[in-house]
């Protein structure tokens, strides 16, 4: 047990300086290859001959460190990070899970990593085969007719759906008229933001008494201006809207299309399919549900699936197969404009393909059921922690993959906020939790999604931490409010990053502005401890 924290954990705490402040003798981290004499003799120093104003006069002020110091610096930084590989991360709405290492070893092979996107398709048969086969597999999983893997994240996938909706209505001469997208308050912010970026007006349905949007509210919202419905289900709250089929029918009757944000499709694999539910399109995050690593906020990939009537609008290129060879069709046709460079994050597709192959159909269903089971285990125990409440008490349905909880009773009783508990979590050696997306309709929220990877013992460890912190909030509230104590760093100032005179996004800005830090107005705080996805 660590003396310092009393929690059995303390993080690596290297006090690692900014890399440009490491100092020491000027060193070299890597020497570029020598230029062959034949080349140098033939052309001379062409860079030196560049016109003034075009040529760089003094080299960029980058670190000058010997190789091992660069390695050590970044290794130390890695040790002060809490990826899923090293802790139980239950960050809600993020579907954290184990990313199998074997995938990394295959993806790193030169045959996969060192290929150019514009190579002749004849020389890309391996990558194209994976894209093609996974496309068919995703169609089976989602009940859709075709997929694209071009978008590089869930948000970009949802944006793609908004563009598909736009293209569909434009193709029918209703582009101007149908300018409204309907979403729900507990759908991910991307379900509201991306249609706005695609030019739509956004209508947000607020939750009713059961915690989800109601049929009547949707009926009141649809009109001849309705372009589509874009939502998450189960929502951020882990609550599946049982009226979903009716939602889809109402929007279809009004002439709109329906897009299902299945970023966190984890609880529904092999259980429910977007296609069977009537949706025209959907998207899955391969970096969440399908095990591709989250990459410290990216390398993502959204698999965007559509029904046949929308297939012609998918962005190009399309992977083709003639029974023998795989190819790429670049013909623009009716395709929407390109979303992401080239073919997208194909390494994420490889990893997702590998994961589905490893598990098979039975395994996917086991993933879904286990994610739901683990979540209900967490719920069962958390609801017994004094200080926690579960929103919408009238709703007694089991939750699916996650739950939005509330520390409101604890806060009322002790003044300890969810944010404080979150920071204290780190002292227990687990990744902090996600509070909530906006709108913050649940007071003092926290959102946990245990996923299918964790063992009972790992879940019990998180439960223990939550129980102990709730106890501390009563007995030693300052310990919680001044947390973290055993993390890589001590609490930092939440105001500086939000004050234009003080914020610094680069070391050069920091050197110029750090003198202002003494004058910063302390007030509202900020995202000091935050982080979410």
């Amino acid at each position, binding site marked *: 047990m660590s003396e310092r924290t009393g929690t059995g954990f303390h993080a690596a705490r290297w006090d690692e300086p900014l890399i440009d402040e490491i100092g020491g003798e000027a060193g070299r981290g890597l020497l570029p290859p020598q230029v062959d004499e034949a080349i140098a003799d033939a052309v001379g120093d062409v860079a030196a001959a560049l016109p003034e104003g075009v040529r760089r006069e003094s080299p960029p002020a980058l670190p000058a460190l010997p190789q091992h110091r*660069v390695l050590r610096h970044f290794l130390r930084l890695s040790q002060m990070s809490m990826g899923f590989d090293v802790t139980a991360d239950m960050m809600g709405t993020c579907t954290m899970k184990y990313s199998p290492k074997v995938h990394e070893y295959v993806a790193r092979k030169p045959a996969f990593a060192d290929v150019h996107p514009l190579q002749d398709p004849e020389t890309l048969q391996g990558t194209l085969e994976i894209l093609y086969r996974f496309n068919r597999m995703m169609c089976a999983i989602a009940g859709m007719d075709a997929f694209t893997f071009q978008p590089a994240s869930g948000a970009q996938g949802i944006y793609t759906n908004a563009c598909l909706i736009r293209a569909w209505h434009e193709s029918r001469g209703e582009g101007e008229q149908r300018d409204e997208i309907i979403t729900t308050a507990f759908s991910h912010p991307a379900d509201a933001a991306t249609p706005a970026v695609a030019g739509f007006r956004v209508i947000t349905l607020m939750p009713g008494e059961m915690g989800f949007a109601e049929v009547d509210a949707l009926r009141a919202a649809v009109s001849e201006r309705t372009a589509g419905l874009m939502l998450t289900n189960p929502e951020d709250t882990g609550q599946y809207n049982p009226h979903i089929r009716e939602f889809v029918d109402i929007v279809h009757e009004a002439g709109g299309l329906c897009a299902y944000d299945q970023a966190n499709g984890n609880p529904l694999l092999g259980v429910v399919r977007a296609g069977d539910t009537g949706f025209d399109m959907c998207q899955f995050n391969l970096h969440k549900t399908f095990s591709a690593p989250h990459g410290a906020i990216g390398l993502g990939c959204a698999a965007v699936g559509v029904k046949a009537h929308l297939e012609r609008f998918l962005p190009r290129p399309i992977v083709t197969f003639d029974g023998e060879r795989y190819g790429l069709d670049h013909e623009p046709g009716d395709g929407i404009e390109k979303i992401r460079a080239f073919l997208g994050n194909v390494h994420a597709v490889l990893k997702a393909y590998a994961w589905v192959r490893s598990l098979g159909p039975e395994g996917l269903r086991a993933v879904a059921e286990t994610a739901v089971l683990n979540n209900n285990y967490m719920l069962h125990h958390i609801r017994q922690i004094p200080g926690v409440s579960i929103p919408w008490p009238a709703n007694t349905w089991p939750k699916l993959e996650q739950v939005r909880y509330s520390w409101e009773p604890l806060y009322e009783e002790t003044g300890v906020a969810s944010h404080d508990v979150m920071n204290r979590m780190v002292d227990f050696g687990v990744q902090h939790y996600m509070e909530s997306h906006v709108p913050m309709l649940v007071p003092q929220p926290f959102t946990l999604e245990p996923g299918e990877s964790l063992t009972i013992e790992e879940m019990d460890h998180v439960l223990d931490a939550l129980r102990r912190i709730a106890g501390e909030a009563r007995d030693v509230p300052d310990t919680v409010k001044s947390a973290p104590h055993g993390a890589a760093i001590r609490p930092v100032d939440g105001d500086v990053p939000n004050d234009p005179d003080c914020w610094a996004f680069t070391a050069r800005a920091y050197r110029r502005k750090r003198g202002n830090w003494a004058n910063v107005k302390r007030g509202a705080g900020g995202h000091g401890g935050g982080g979410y996805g």
Partner: protein
Amino acid sequence: MGDGFTHPYVPNAAPAPRRKLLDAIGVDDVTDLYAAIPEALRVEGLLDLPPALPGEQDLRRHLEETVARNRSCTGSWLNFCGAGCAQHYVPAIVDEIVHRGELLTAYGGGTYSDHGKNQALFEFQSLMGELVGMEVVSTPTYDAGAATGSAVLMACRIGGRSRVLVPESMSADRRAQLRGFTKPFATVETVARDPGTGLVDLADLRGKVSGETAAVVIESPGYLGPIETGAAEAAAIAHEAGALLIAGVDPISLGVLAAPADWGADLVVGDLQPLGIHMYAGGGNGGFIASRDEARFVAEYPSILFSIAPAPGNAPGFGFAWSTMERTSYDTRHDATDYTGTTQWIWGIGAAVYLSLMGPDGMAELGRGIMQRACYAAERIADLPGVAVPHLAQPFFKEFTVDFSATGKTVAAINRALLEAEIHGGKDLSGEFPALGQSALYCVTELHGAAEIERLVSALGEAVR
């Protein structure tokens, strides 16, 4: 699934823990937990998927056999195609760090749980800032095209204007990406390319800017290779009209080319892939946006920005926090003016490691060497009968166009012949820029020495004969 299922990735699906969990929550069957889902919507039976390969060895063999069907750009093969995704050397330490599990499997952690990840991203922002000469750099965006699109919309909002000028020589894909993204808010027009020099036609630019122009985009090096020696003048023209200058740059060129801030750029965009990231058939791409540290610029960034933050009081130490999140859709949903989400952060960490290794001298030497190799290759290719490198007299960095029209051969035929020699040829421009005839875009980097260039030149010689 009644009796459970054993698989290393799903421990609690096994019979014993599954029973234990069910008992703990007092439920008989997992299907009871799906009560909210109407029966009619549920899948009957199992999905129609290939059978499982649960053994790691079987899975690995299948995957390795499949990817082995690619002909990569390594081993006996050479690659001379760039066009937005370039093959450079990837230092071992970059691979080491981007595969560290603590980083690779991290995600939305915060100031305390992911301090190291945050610092690595802050170093990315800092080191890119040194390269481009700016004090604000965003966390990575999806790719250079997305960065350009977001920067264009930033400029529109900053200036309250909605017309944007981009070079005619911008890649067709990037123009499409930009057009699609900005369609609801901005009109994108092109500025002619001077066929004599291959550079942006400044007279055309002068004629097209107006009081409605929000931004002028100048790419240097341009997509077709040339260094825009008139970039400073283009910036002056934009500024006179009250427009912003958005510079598109190749960061690996900035050891030898002037920082865009020094020639008048207001916003800088580009792709970080050249900085030590494997190509992954384009999966290696990741963009960035940079600007001066002015509140009116910062307010319009759609992406997450890490600010360094002090310990409270006078305590030593620092950390990093997400700044001014109300700019982003995370905090304001559709009231935000762009969207954000997961992007390509791990490649940003890779780029930070790369720049730390290269250092000032490394970037200068590398840039100089690349220019020499590219120049040498271009001269050698131009010596081939019927083959022209039209803008050999103009400075270029690593890419240049080669015109095969006079050989009577198509680029497609030439590239097929090169494949026989295990060479991936340059990008065929005949569809993208028909005015250039049978031209291809070649890319030469530090991977190509005299021997590799010789192999290309002799294979080209054979192909055009």
